[in-house]
């Protein structure tokens, strides 16, 4: 049981990572990010449930809440970029160059 959960969680994480690193589309990268978060939350929730720690489950809820908030903020940013007429691609945004 545990191994399955860990395997799923790890695969999700790696998929997300791959999406983030390899894709150039902002929206796709963003989806990957969410995948990674969910993967981590899955593992955490599983382990917390196994150990019977309520705090862990609370933390999972918190992570999901943060992920939701993040989705709102992230999508808003992506939309802003889109409306500003620029392609929603990662390499098009270089405002942070030092």
């Amino acid at each position: 049981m545990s191994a399955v959960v860990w395997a799923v969680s790890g695969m999700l994480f790696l998929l997300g990572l791959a999406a983030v690193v390899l894709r150039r589309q902002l929206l796709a990268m963003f989806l990957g990010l969410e995948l990674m978060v969910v993967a981590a939350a899955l593992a955490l929730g599983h382990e917390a449930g196994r150990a019977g720690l309520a705090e862990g489950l609370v933390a999972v809820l918190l992570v999901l809440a943060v992920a939701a908030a993040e989705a709102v903020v992230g999508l808003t940013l992506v939309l802003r970029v889109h409306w500003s007429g620029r392609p929603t691609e990662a390499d098009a945004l270089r405002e942070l160059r030092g």
Partner: protein
Amino acid sequence: MIHIPSAVILLFAAPLAALAVGFFVTRPYKPEWTHIPVLLSCAVVCACAAYLAAFVYSGRGLDGTLFRWMVAGDWDVPFGVRIDGIGVSVLAMVSLVGALIHLYAVGYMKGDPGFARFFLLFHLFYLSMIGLLISNNYVQLYLFWELVGVCSYFLIGFWMHKPAARRAALQAFLTLRVADLGLMLAVLILMGLYRNTRFAALYAVAGGIPTGVLALLGVLFVWAAAGKSALFPLYFWLPDAMEGPSPVSALMHAATMVTAGIFLLVRSWPLICVVPGLPEFIAVVGAVTAILAAVLASTQTDLKRILAYSTVSHLGLMAFGLGLGQVTAGVFHLVTHGFFKAVLFLCAGILAHAAGKSTVSVSEVGGLRRKMPLTFLCFLVAALSLGGFPLTAGFYSKDAILDAAFAHGGWAAAAGLAIAAGSAFYISRMLFLTFFGSRPEQKPIEHPHEAPPVMIVPVLFLSAGAVSVGWLGRGLARMLGSGWPKSVPAPALEGPTSVVSSAGLAAAALGAAGAYWLTMLRPSWDWQWRRRRPGLEALFFDDLGWRRVPVACVTAAVWFADKVGRVLDRDCWDAAIEGSTGVCRRVSEAGSRLATGSLSDSLWWVMIGAAALLAWAALR
């Protein structure tokens, strides 16, 4: 709780009330009436002083606390009064002379745009001087000591449109500050050691204080007195202070404020006199000051400057008498000097007033005897008193000091005679040059006129004092004994021996005759030597070079401050700190090349970081 007579309270209350009324009522609405509350207050103060003089004369005294000024735990600095012989004998002189000069100033300052300001400052000074005399501890004395200094600053610089007045005011204040360092240090040392500076308490323990501490205290007191009373190293501010209005010169820089230093020494005498050698030191300082200033007074051309150097000389004489152990003689001369020097300054003020200027030089006077007879009369009386003519006040007080000098013998006797001769010389020279004859070099004031009654009447009263206070010597000696610590006997004033009197008279006559010879028999001599030897005149005007020393000190201080404040602080230290931001910026610019701004680059960095963390965790 000691009962404090209302006369003592009135000494503070009346001037304070007058100042309040003057500042808040008359100054804004009727500035030309400011003198009215002030004069009323003077009258009240004089009455109180007279009452207190009788109080002390009858052997009574008072030392009480009005309120606690500073408090820390069980320790405090009281604000109190001490009514005893020394304080009240000077207080009587100060209040009377001060009141008369206030009256004179009504005429002198009439029409001046700063009339109200003048009277308020003048009266604040009067209040402070009275407070100084009746303080019962050193901290309170220091309070009034500084206040008179500040009043002096604002009054010397009263006509601030004159550059010389501004300069003189600053010079006077800073010199006095340098001197006050001594008093403040002494007070702090006393506080640190005994946590108490009440005179009564200190007099009682004077014998128990270690000699080393007492010597230090004594030297600090002398340093402070040298500033305020214009003794040798620090006297130079006084002649320049003559830029103030004449009443100021008369009251503050002749009769009262400058005697505060002598008063401080007398107050501290029970502490000073037990230090071996210190009284002699004071006598030497006094003698050097007196002789040097007498020489310089003889070479000045400005009337008020002559008198200023004469004041320096007589302050030196007081210190001389004090140092020889004659406390009574010193105080006696302080009192008589207050009268005759005030007259001389006020007469010089009348001449200046007639000329419409703040001061006149000997080239602008001459032969004024007939045109200004009353002024001449007053001046003559005061000059005789200063010169030590028999039966005048100066004669008695100076002979008391000469007596001490002869008792000491040796250099002291010689110095005493030299001072007597010098005083007679310069004052006779001034008298002859001003009121007798008219020399070709002199262009007398046009239309000289006698001063209005409000000015001349006070001078007449003061002249009467300049003759008669000398007769009160024994009474003064008796007053001084009241409240004086028993451990240090205040010597009674004995009539000088005939030898001393005649020697003093002979010296004075010699001086006067010399002056007669050089000004009346050779009327142009005073101008001839100046023309022939301009370098010599410059040397005398430079106080034989001494004036350059303070100037050099100030220049050095300003240079040093500039080096510290501008070069070290701003150009080196602050510049280094500001420069450090540049270093930071360069480092961060170098680092910022790594930040390309590309999201994928950043992500690779995140990956590398995460991998490194994982590796570290795995290897640990």
